[in-house]
């Protein structure tokens, strides 16, 4: 029993942090970088093998697990990284032959997320993605978007493109089983955790240097106690995510319940921390030049995906747990 990164997990987390901070720093969103990962970054992420951490070695992956997958996507979230990185990793679970999986693992072809919306779908991710992935609780459908009519919409969250797709085109592969949904939950929950941690780190650093009434604001209890509350909510989300990712790795019978709790707590932690960090920063917190709103907008989107509040709570209520 051990519930924190250790050994090689720490090395992977450090390598992911370095790579993402260099390739995809949150500052890019202030410097004219567009949404999504883009073809160039997709190729370099693919080259490093980041999309296939949790895929068996025989299938072209790293043979690691949901735990390393979580550690990687926490770093993606910390830099407000786009969702299509995760969608690409999930699409790599496809067993469709003809070199498709190899192309996805290598980042040669892109995938974006299809989410049902009324009679049609929303597409989250690059409009030039070749594939659209619709993930449900018990499996996923991979659509070929080549002929789909994609109607771009202005996006609240500058990290991700948003579009309407009424007909996402032919299904070229069905991915059976709950694992793809579960790995999606781990990934989004980890991104939300990273966002929540970044939001807390930002205000803690600012509270040490910003002064009001002759003191750093971090010496005022109104600020200190709000930061402490953020720390508590982040700590709960982190511990539960490590528990859930490990439960998935170990194939425990109660993994789904732990994943639902982890996603719920990550939703709550990220929505709370990104709200509080704007408020505690004061005026600077509502400016476009600051990171706080980027984190808040990204958190609001991710909290809807792979289980929003109502859906998660409904499934959690009667779930049985093991020792």
């Amino acid at each position, binding site marked *: 029993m*051990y519930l924190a990164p250790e050994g090689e997990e720490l090395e992977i987390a450090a390598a992911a942090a370095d790579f993402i901070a260099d390739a995809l720093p949150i500052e890019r969103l202030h410097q004219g970088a567009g949404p999504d990962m883009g073809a160039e970054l997709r190729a370099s992420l693919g080259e490093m093998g980041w999309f296939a951490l949790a895929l068996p070695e025989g299938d072209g992956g790293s043979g690691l697990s949901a735990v390393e997958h979580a550690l990687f996507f926490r770093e993606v979230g910390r830099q407000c990284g786009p969702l299509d990185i995760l969608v690409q990793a999930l699409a790599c679970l496809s067993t469709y032959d003809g070199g498709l999986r190899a192309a996805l693992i290598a980042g040669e072809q892109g995938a974006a997320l299809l989410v049902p919306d009324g009679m049609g779908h929303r597409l989250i991710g690059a409009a030039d993605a070749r594939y659209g992935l619709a993930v449900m609780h018990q499996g996923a459908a991979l659509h070929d978007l080549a002929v789909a009519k994609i109607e771009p919409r202005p996006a609240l969250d500058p990290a991700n493109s948003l579009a309407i797709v009424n007909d996402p085109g032919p299904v070229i592969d069905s991915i059976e089983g709950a694992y793809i949904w579960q790995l999606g939950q781990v990934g989004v929950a980890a991104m939300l955790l990273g966002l929540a941690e970044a939001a807390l780190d930002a205000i803690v650093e600012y509270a040490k240097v910003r002064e009001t009434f002759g003191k750093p604001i971090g010496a005022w209890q109104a600020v200190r106690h709000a930061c402490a509350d953020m720390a508590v909510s982040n700590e709960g989300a982190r511990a539960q995510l490590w528990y859930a990712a490990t439960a998935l790795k170990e194939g425990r019978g109660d993994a789904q319940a732990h994943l639902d709790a982890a996603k719920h707590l990550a939703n709550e932690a990220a929505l709370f921390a990104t709200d509080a960090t704007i408020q505690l920063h004061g005026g600077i917190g509502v400016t476009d030049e600051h990171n706080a709103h980027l984190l808040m907008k990204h958190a609001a989107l991710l909290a809807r995906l792979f289980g929003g509040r109502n859906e998660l709570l409904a499934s959690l209520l009667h779930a049985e747990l093991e020792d």
Partner: protein
Amino acid sequence: MDLRFSDEDLDFRARARDWLAANVPGTPRPAGGHAASQFDRDWQKKLYEHGWAGVAWPKDFGGMGLSGLQQVIWYEELSRAHAPAAHISTTYVAQMHAGPTIIARGTEEQKAYHLPRILSGEALWCQGFSEPNAGSDLAALRTSGRVEGDHIVVNGAKMWTTDAMHADWMELLIRTDPASQRHKGLTWLAFDMKTPGIDIKPIRTMLLDEHVNMVFFDEVRVPLSAVVGQLHGGWSTAMATLSFERGLGFIADQLELFEKVGRAVRLAGEMRGPDGLPLIEDVEVARKLAAIKAETMAIRAMTLADIAETDRTGMPGPKGSMMKLKVTATHKALTRLVSDILGWQFFEFDGNRDNNPWTHDFLWSWVFSIAGGSSEIQREITADRVLELPRSR
């Protein structure tokens, strides 16, 4: 990361479960008074005689020398077996404060005298730290001790002393250097409650109970041999006590919440709303219950993470304060919600926790978030030690 318990831990769980199934008392703990403390002594004696006493104590001092994770397992099995709860027992201060403090700072004589008596349930202890003007700010304490030859003469008053009337000993923190300020000049005494000159006055709380007390000291003579640690060095001794409590003292509360949520879900399945349907089918009740369940899962994960880390490093980290904040807030949310689920039954309360445990727990939720360091103090500790923010004081 790894969720599997070792074979040794699994074996320990199986042995604990078997023994508890066969040995848990058939009658519930009396609600209060002498009968309750006698019940606690008897249960402690039984644990001691069968080798289950001192779960948190090193083997060298008669304890079981369990790892932190094995202690978690022990408390989980106590809860599962509906065994007497360690954290509401009159043995708590002896087991969790006084014993560990004497182990850490006591003389050989003090260890030889006190430790076996604590383990066997012969000696119950109470705590004499807080005062009318020194609660959260413990270092403001003023109860004085005047050194006269080989004695200390104590004058003053202690407050919030739980079960003082049943205790044989008190961990008593006083100011022995009259010129001293704040953390300096304090002394920690193993105080014999039979000493002449003390007066115990119960404080009736909003729970309608009289478990906590004021204890007055009027020219009370204590031998110097009762000093644990250094004379005038009591702050250091007291911190040894409190750091122990912050590390492991709330495990039982944390794990008990898990069981309470299960009870609340069953209750919501039985109680009906104005529309005649079970309340569990009310979407607001169901969502609130599920959200609280998620919090208790996080609390368990935080507990396991923190204790597994402490088992590796040998040092309790600063996360106990975050745990207490989350546990007390979740407990409060749960008891609020159940107050709605229970309907008019919630308003029936005679002061006996067994007659209406939910109403009792609702009232106790404020005690929980104030005693042992209020939530405001826990936020300060978190801001200082976890976030390393500039000091507020």
